[in-house]
């Protein structure tokens, strides 16, 4: 981002893509065989449980309980083993009374606002912390950063009591607010640090061009901060999606229950419906996997975006 404003001394960057590719090629060319083998082993070890989960989720109850998932290697085309039954049961109503299909939608209802709202508020806050002059600015920022070290668990009981008096327990609004609050300090911190690295002259130039704070924010700062915004959005999305504790406490089980809570519910029942767990587990992790695979570019870049100017 910032390279665009840095002075170029001579030739125009005719095709920045070519440069980039050749650089990456050079870097990977340096990896020795030992490194490659080591990494392959690591990847294999990490992928193994997921693979087992995936295979088991398509096997019948009898097959799951009589043999391990690796037994399919011997006889992969035995049609008596394979079934889609687990998924149809998990996604619809089943004996255990857990509807993962509904929980899947609930998970989205919880996660999307709990991701978008804190980013929006944090971006506004980060702008004010970076580009506006006001009394107590530094102290406020220190307080917000200090909140990073306070564990969320400390707030659970007071929040539960507060929601109780307000009659908000087991509503979506309750989890939204909790997630927004818990995610906010990190969001403000990351975004402010990123914005502080943006060239000041650009903001001053906008000031002279007649842009109000509002215009500067939407037309310049937001587009220029995309890497930091994207990386935080991914973090927050994954964190909220995978969260069990906050949802269990403030949403509980029932109509509004989300995937993680539903999955845990399946596990609780003795014996009955245990064959559904692999399928349910896969339904739960499919979204994080897709998010990660499609946005990994931002994910890796974003990790450093707060620290060093990208």
């Amino acid at each position, binding site marked *: *981002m910032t390279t*665009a404003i*840095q002075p170029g*001394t001579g030739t125009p960057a005719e095709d*920045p893509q070519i440069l980039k590719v050749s650089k990456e090629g050079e870097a990977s060319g340096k990896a020795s065989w030992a490194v490659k083998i080591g990494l392959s082993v690591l990847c294999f070890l990490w992928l193994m449980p997921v693979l087992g989960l995936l295979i088991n989720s398509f096997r019948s109850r009898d097959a799951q309980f009589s043999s391990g998932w690796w037994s399919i290697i011997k006889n992969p085309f035995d049609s008596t083993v394979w079934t889609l039954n687990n998924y149809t049961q998990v996604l619809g109503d089943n004996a255990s009374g857990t509807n993962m299909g509904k929980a899947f939608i609930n998970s989205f209802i919880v996660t999307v606002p709990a991701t978008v709202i804190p980013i929006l508020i944090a971006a506004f806050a980060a702008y004010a912390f970076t580009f506006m002059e006001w009394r107590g600015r530094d102290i406020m920022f220190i307080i917000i950063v200090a909140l990073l070290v306070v564990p969320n668990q400390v707030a659970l009981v007071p929040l539960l009591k507060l929601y109780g008096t307000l009659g908000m327990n087991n509503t979506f609004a309750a989890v939204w607010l909790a997630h927004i609050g818990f995610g906010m300090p990190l969001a403000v911190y990351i975004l402010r640090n990123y914005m502080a690295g943006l060239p000041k002259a*650009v903001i001053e*130039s906008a000031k*002279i061009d007649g842009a109000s704070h509002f215009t500067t924010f939407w037309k310049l700062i937001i587009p220029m901060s995309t890497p930091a915004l994207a990386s935080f959005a991914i973090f927050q999305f994954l964190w909220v999606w995978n969260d069990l504790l906050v949802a269990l406490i403030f949403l509980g089980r029932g109509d509004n229950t989300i995937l993680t809570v539903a999955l845990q519910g399946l596990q609780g029942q003795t014996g009955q419906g245990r064959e559904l767990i692999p399928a349910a587990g896969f339904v739960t992790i499919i979204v994080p996997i897709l998010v990660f695979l499609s946005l990994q570019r931002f994910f890796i870049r974003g990790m450093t975006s707060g620290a060093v100017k990208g």
Partner: protein
Amino acid sequence: MATVKFDNATRVYPGATRPSVDKLNIDIADGEFLVLVGPSGCGKSTSLRMLAGLEEVNGGKIWIGDRDVTNLSPKDRDVAMVFQNYALYPHMTVADNMGFALKIAGVNKSEIDTRVKEAAKILDLTQYLERKPKALSGGQRQRVAMGRAIVRSPQVFLMDEPLSNLDAKLRVQTRTQIASLQRRLGVTTVYVTHDQVEAMTMGDRIALLKDGLLQQCATPREMYDRPANLFVAGFIGSPAMNLVGVPVTGDGEVKFGSHRLPVDRAALASAGKDVVVGVRPEDVEVTSNNDGMALTVELVEELGADAYVHAVPKESGMKMYGEEEGISKPFVARVDGRRVPQKGETIYVYPSSEHLHVFNAETGVRLG
């Protein structure tokens, strides 16, 4: 188009004891190209930013035309600024960059389009209008920054070292382009630079600052021919003026080695026993007779038509002004390139009397 007036404008940064810009008074005429020049930290950029509204004015006033803009926000001042690092908006195309201010001002699309195209034509940017800044060279980016200012047709152009990020050759080219463009558009311009060559070649007038204080504000010719004090004398001109501390003889003359220079009596009256005599390299008379200050040639710079002779005084009594302990400052003289003295040779120099500068040794102020 408008006049600009700094009226005792002062800026004190919070926590600083000394003002960064101290009671600055400059009147800039309509359509004038004024260059603010000085060493780094002299307050030239701060002055410009005060005029832009990016820096608070702690004392005095600033006027653009007949409006007091001291407390107006930047957008109400009707000025356009070109930044040192251009400050282009990286995610916008060249056309959007140039049209941004107009878009905010609510100018309609077709009008923006015509004005952007017009400016692009002037600056030779037409074929790059759809590119992003990162796909442009340094010189092209610089022109986009200029274009952004031109499109707005403001009352005043402000330029903060716009050439310092270009390579030497491009800098000289762009220097002439900016100067001629300014003359053509006739917009009042305030230009900040630390490069005295840029200041000399571009400005209608130059304002030289040091430590937040205005040293002299005059035309390049005047600055060169009649520097108001020792600092101006040493700053303007390349190679710099030779400044030599010499004794006053008492009868309206100063002694320059064995050469006696007549100086206005009235002027000398205010000086002490010593004065500083300034002489530009091209105003030095070089002889081999024993007349003037004896120097030993240390180095000769051959430039073809001319040569610059760097030499050090032979007698210990002569002192180059501004010379520090242990580091000798050479006396520089321009000589005919076809008759240069040899290294180690002794030469005698004295200033030609029509271009003599005499300064008070204590205060540094010009005498007469």
